[in-house]
């Protein structure tokens, strides 16, 4: 399996990353997920901190776990860090397989594990000051559904 894992400050292009998989005759389905900054007003920002080294290791481990579970030809995970403004892109996950079911499910699996196991932390900068974002119980629940199966 081809796995691209990147943690970066700069923006990414869904089209460019998709094009990297174009021409592959063994791939019948590609699912793309893009997570974006929402609910911020102009001038406000979302800041993402991470644990360099562990982040890449955790993302590679999650991609590997997805590949163990579904027949995947390619996985791309790109996560941004640093300060992001309203409506900016945060994360891209591409999953490529022969058929759509594996691509859909593996994509959701990767995001559910990324949100609960990859060491990123969000902080919101608003007119009221800076505040760390609390972890959500629903994210943990979303991950657990894969462990029951």
């Amino acid at each position: 399996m081809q796995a691209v894992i990147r943690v970066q400050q700069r923006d990414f292009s869904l089209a460019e990353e998709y094009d990297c998989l174009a021409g592959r005759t063994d791939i019948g389905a590609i699912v793309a997920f893009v997570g974006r900054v929402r609910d911020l007003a102009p001038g406000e920002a979302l800041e993402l901190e991470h644990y360099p080294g562990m982040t890449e290791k955790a993302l590679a481990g999650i991609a590997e776990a997805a590949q163990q579970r579904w027949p995947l030809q390619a996985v791309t995970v790109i996560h941004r860090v640093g300060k992001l403004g309203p409506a900016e892109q945060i994360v891209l996950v591409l999953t490529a397989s022969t058929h759509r079911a594996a691509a859909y499910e593996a994509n959701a699996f990767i995001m559910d594990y990324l949100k609960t196991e990859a060491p990123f932390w969000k902080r919101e900068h608003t007119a009221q000051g800076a505040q760390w974002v609390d972890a959500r119980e629903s994210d943990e629940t979303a991950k657990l559904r894969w462990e029951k199966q």
Partner: protein
Amino acid sequence: MNTIKILYFARLREAFACAEENVTLPAEVHNVAALIGWLAARGGVWTDELGGKRVFRVAINQDMARFDAPIPPGAEVAIFPPVTGG
């Protein structure tokens, strides 16, 4: 004697005003639970954050670790709030 590096991230880094430190552990501090108890005994913000009232996670050598996990010699231990990426 086991000298380890401890990293703190996000809210914990700010609360402790410390991003990383090297510490030599007493012999009885051999696993994660013992390490947390030892750090919480520093008092003040250390007790507030690690004394049981607030939730946090621990990684050993860049892998998530349980509270009963042993601490290997020279380990890189990280303590941080539950993650919020994606």
